[in-house]
């Protein structure tokens, strides 16, 4: 780094110890091996139990209850696909999926473009680097509930800051989260504001790992700045971009806090999301079968994205 005046580059947190493990020594007597095994499992036990209870069992249970009429405390009844047909016929079902997909798409467009451009610009700045990194990450550290309440206040039709800003600029005011056609976009803005810090930092790290010679070579070939972005920056960060996009899809398809806190799913179901609908089925309608049917649908879709993500990240390493 050129400006070494400030200690801006801390040592990487995850350090690699110098040596790789050697293949283990085999050929021990059976009793010794049994003792080793029981000790190994003693170490594993606590973690394993928690995974079994709170990850594996609920995953199986979601699928089972999706085909049952389930009331806590009562004997569950098998109902075939009745839960699925009931959920399908709910007018909120289509709205929830439409909203979730629109939300994901908008969050992807805004949530990809804004952080990438910010990271590009920040990567070129030679001063106050630490300041920018801290400030951009600050909203991530504010509890999501607080961000949601804060923006609910900004969007307030009376004394909200959002409309004040528009008035100040002599622009027409908006209904923001209170208008059926602007509510979803308003929520995307909140989610982007609250989360882009992490994305910016990751892009920045990726940009810094691009070898400088590539830019020099491109410049010698007469490439202007746009061409350098197009032919050097983007191809070099392609992997990180794709990875973050997938992660973002997975995260935004599970959006809950913003609609729950800011709009309560309204107006006119404009911001009901799938996870919100799952919550409603379970805790408002006491319909756990319907909630699990919805969960299974969401699960299948998200698992496809997760699988793609895992394949991508694992292709980056060799284990």
């Amino acid at each position, binding site marked *: 780094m050129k400006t070494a005046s400030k200690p801006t580059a801390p040592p990487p947190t995850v*350090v690699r110890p110098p040596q790789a493990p050697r293949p*283990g020594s085999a050929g021990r007597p059976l009793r010794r091996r049994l003792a080793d095994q029981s000790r190994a499992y003693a170490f594993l036990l*606590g973690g394993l139990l928690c995974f079994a209870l709170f990850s594996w069992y609920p995953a199986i249970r979601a699928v089972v209850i999706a085909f049952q009429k389930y009331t806590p405390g009562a004997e569950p009844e098998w109902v075939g696909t009745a839960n699925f047909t009931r959920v399908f016929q709910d007018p909120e079902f289509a709205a929830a999926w439409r909203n979730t997909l629109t939300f994901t798409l908008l969050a992807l467009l805004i949530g990809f473009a804004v952080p990438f451009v910010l990271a590009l610009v920040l990567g070129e700045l*030679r001063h106050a680097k630490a300041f920018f990194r801290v400030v951009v990450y600050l909203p991530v550290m504010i509890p999501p509930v607080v961000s949601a309440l804060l923006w609910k206040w900004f969007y307030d039709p009376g004394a909200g800051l959002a409309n004040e800003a528009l008035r100040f600029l002599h622009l027409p005011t908006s209904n923001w989260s209170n208008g059926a056609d602007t509510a979803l976009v308003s929520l995307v803005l909140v989610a982007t504001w609250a989360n882009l810090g992490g994305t910016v930092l990751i892009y920045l790290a990726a940009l810094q790992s691009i070898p400088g010679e590539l830019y020099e070579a491109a410049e010698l070939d007469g490439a202007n700045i746009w061409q350098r972005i197009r032919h050097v920056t983007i191809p070099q960060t392609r992997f990180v971009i794709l990875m973050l996009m997938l992660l973002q899809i997975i995260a935004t*398809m599970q959006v809950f806090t913003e609609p729950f806190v800011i709009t309560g799913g309204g107006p006119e179901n404009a911001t009901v999301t799938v*996870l919100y609908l799952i919550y409603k089925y379970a805790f408002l309608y006491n319909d756990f079968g319907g909630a699990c049917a919805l969960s299974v649908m969401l699960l299948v879709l*998200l698992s496809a994205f997760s699988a793609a993500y895992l394949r991508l990240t694992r292709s980056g390493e060799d284990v």
Partner: protein
Amino acid sequence: MSSTRTLVSPLTLARPRGKALYWAVFTGVVLLFTLAFLFPVYWMTTGAMKSPDEVTRTPPTLVPERWHLSGYTDAWDLMRLPTHLWNTVVQATGAWILQLVFCTAAAYALSKLRPAFGKVVLGGILATLMVPAQALVVPKYLTVADLPLIHTSLLNDPLGIWLPAVANAFNLYLLKRFFDQLPRDVLEAAEIDGAGRLRTLWSIVLPMSRPVLGVVSIFALVAVWQDFLWPLMVFSDTDEQPISVALVQLSQNIPLTVLIAAMVIASIPMVAMFLVFQRHIIAGISAGSTKG
């Protein structure tokens, strides 16, 4: 370190026009960041100090006419913030400690003790990474409400946060991958010297693993502190609710300035932790990315 070449060449930046442009962009970014990220925080902190009448006034005042601290003191008493903050601290600390104990032990076993079916177990743990947690909250809730075999409910109990937090495949995998890279000779030397497994873990492995333990600790604490949906389901009892749930539940019927003050107070712990450990946190995020 030598000078790094980025998108714009140092030569262009050295020219007068380049210099002018650079400072224009720099000023623009400073303004943008201040407006977009710092101003909302300022607005929240000062909004809590306005009078109830002033906070709803249009056009709004940039600086409170008179600085009232009553918003903060009212929030502290009326919303019983000490209770909810304490609940959050208990929930986050317990989840953190249990995760450190159980995830570290399990990761150590999977990495160094070669348990039978270790590959299968690891596969099962990694598979949970594919299943996004939020999609499973309802069956998880039903499990916590009535644990299989022992038929106990963990609802309204910090254990309902602590135990599910242990099932964190991401942190476990982070630890396992770190342990994989520890040189085996050192551990074997300890064994030859007569140290048991636990002793080796405690006095050899853990001291060597400080960086990764730090990262896992921060992830664990932040995750519980920021979570909303899961504690909303687990704690129907108001006295047990963490601050995030209590804020939303109480936001309907509380004066605006008091609510804003409570929001500020709820943000302080994590923001303070971030400012203290910012260098490690930012380095951790950046490092995690380039390793893919």
